[in-house]
């Protein structure tokens, strides 16, 4: 009784089902068209070099800290917020990690939680500002972008802090050596166990994506995030503590920025007081290219992952092909536009509708032009 409204009106139920299945299969692949194109371009132009494990590791590793930021950013964007301060939070966290290493000589497994805590506190501040003080997220995080950067610079006295601390013997101290595993190029985890080992930034990024996607799709919290972004009033009346959800996503976003901080410091083998500047644009771009809507309620971590890959591999492919940088800027912009248009779910559906109509009637519906 309930589900048959559509099949009843459609002339050929079976044919429609077949069609629909094909379309939905294509549709589920369609979110990756942009990525596929970039990959294809890379393989065609640079084949083995592009596909080599080390190249892909390098490419993803370079973007990993921004990719992790993008995951947090996606959470915030899903609640219809935005966090511009992620870059500054990452910068401060990376500075904190380097200072803990250099000044306190702490081991990495202490530094990491400390940085995450530090990031979470900053994110909490953002969350409180947007909920209790009811400041637009854009304004609140624009302000904290500046505040956190100021703290970062004040803390470091504008001097970058190298993480490759040498002991009295001229060799790296134990902690500094293990700190390199956070992402200094050429330092891998589990070397020997898994071939050439695993590059931590890539691992961390993938793990964060998997955990984030599971949390969003499988838990109550995930549903609440979507609900708050989709219709805040409805969410509240449905028993969602909307303030708490918003504070939680901002805090998580900060926590992830804190998590990414040491990676950035290790990748650069130093914490720069300007580290992370304008990373927020990359993070937002990854989320949005991956299909997140800034109006909230739409998007996914998988999408963000794809968006991040598109950004970084595009960069890699253009770099491998030694395209001049000015042209790169132009090409990248154009490709982003093309990718977003191609990935739109209704594009294929619109095309399929058209094909179906043509197939059914032998001619497109000529009455009424479109749009």
């Amino acid at each position, binding site marked *: 009784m309930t589900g048959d409204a559509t099949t009843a009106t459609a002339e050929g139920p079976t044919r429609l089902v077949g069609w629909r299945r094909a379309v939905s299969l294509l549709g589920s692949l369609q979110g990756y068209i942009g990525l596929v194109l970039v990959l294809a371009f890379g393989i065609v132009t640079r084949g083995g070099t592009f596909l080599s494990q080390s190249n892909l590791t390098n490419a993803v590793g370079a973007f990993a800290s921004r990719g992790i930021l993008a995951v947090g950013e996606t959470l915030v964007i899903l609640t219809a917020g935005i966090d511009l301060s992620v870059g500054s939070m990452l910068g401060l966290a990376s500075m904190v990690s380097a200072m803990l290493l250099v000044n306190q000589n702490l081991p990495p497994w202490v530094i990491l939680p400390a940085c995450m805590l530090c990031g979470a506190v900053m994110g909490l501040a953002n969350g409180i500002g947007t909920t209790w003080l009811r400041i637009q997220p854009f304004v609140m995080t624009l302000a904290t972008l500046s505040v956190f950067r100021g703290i970062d610079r004040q803390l470091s006295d504008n001097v*970058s802090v190298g993480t490759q601390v040498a002991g009295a013997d001229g060799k790296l101290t134990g902690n500094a050596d293990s700190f390199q595993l956070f992402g200094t190029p050429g330092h891998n985890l589990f070397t020997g166990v898994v071939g050439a080992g695993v590059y931590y930034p890539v691992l961390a990024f993938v793990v964060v994506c998997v955990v984030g996607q599971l949390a969003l799709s499988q838990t109550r919290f995930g549903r609440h995030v979507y609900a708050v972004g989709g219709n805040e009033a409805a969410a509240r009346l449905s028993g969602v503590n909307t303030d708490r959800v918003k504070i939680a996503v901002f805090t998580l976003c900060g926590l992830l920025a804190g998590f990414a901080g040491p990676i950035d410091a290790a990748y*650069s083998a130093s914490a720069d007081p300007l580290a992370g500047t304008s990373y927020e644009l990359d993070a937002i771009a990854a989320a949005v290219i991956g299909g997140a809507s800034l109006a909230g309620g739409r998007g996914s971590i998988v999408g963000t992952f794809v968006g991040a890959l598109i950004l970084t591999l595009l960069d890699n492919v253009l770099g*491998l092909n*030694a395209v001049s*940088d000015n042209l790169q800027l132009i090409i990248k912009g154009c490709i982003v536009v093309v990718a977003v248009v191609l990935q739109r779910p209704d594009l294929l559906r619109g095309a399929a509708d058209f094909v179906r109509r043509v197939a059914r009637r032998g001619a497109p519906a000529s009455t009424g032009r479109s749009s």
Partner: protein
Amino acid sequence: ASTASPTTGGGGSGGHFVVAYSQSNNAEPYRAQLNIQLQYFMKKYKDVTLLPIADAKQSSATQVSQVQQFVQRKVNALIVSPNEPAPLTAAVKQACQAKIPVVILDRSVNTDCYSAFIGGDNYVAGKKAGELAVKLLPNGGTVGELQGILSDQPQIDRDRGFRDAVKANPKIRISVHREAKWLKDDATRITGQWLAQGQHLDLVYAQNDPMALGAYLAASSAGKEKSMKFIGTDGLAIPDGGIRAVQQGQLAGTFIYPTCAKQAAETVNALLHHRKVAKKTTLDIVAVTPDNAAQMYRDNDFSKFR
């Protein structure tokens, strides 16, 4: 230091070499000039191709992945102008491990695993500017200092050099200093604020020429450009650069911070043909004064080669 065989060259064949250059920021006037010069000098070597210059756009992370990409491409030699010393260290090491000769320009890296370093000395650049200031203010006076991005190493070195030099005259006092981020419009705004504050400034030392020119603009807007002196650094021979400004009397002096392009090209060529090169070359800082400005401009003008 290198045994790069031409057959492994990406795109190179039959004794032809491919060289890549990773620049920290193409759109900085000094570096744009360096790029032009390097392209000019590299053209002289017929068996060497310089790939389009890669621009890290002031991002160390970008630069690291650029260097890695060049290593992937197996170029025959690599020139790097590091955005920052520490971050590039690992990437340069990777290049070195891949047996690619690396020439470091201007800013050092924290490893010995490179083939040659060519650069100027920022401390000396600051110091010479300080010495000029001492000469310009024999009776002492107040100085304003416009700094580049505070955490940039050249800023730190030039600042130190300048301060060390002006100690020669205890009556010279650096009364104000602020970060103008190497940018002309920030320098204009900040100098305008100093003048509005009623600061009496006899001299403004700017760590690059655009900032010096910005300060000059602000002073001329307040009608004080005649009673103040301006010192810049970079000394580019472009219409918009410091040498021309010295010629026109806007700056009291500037310093040609060497682009190292000619030496870099020579060194790379030598490395590719397995000749010995000096591990470390430090180039002189040449002062530009109203007396020699015209000559300097002619000597360093590369516009005809663009």
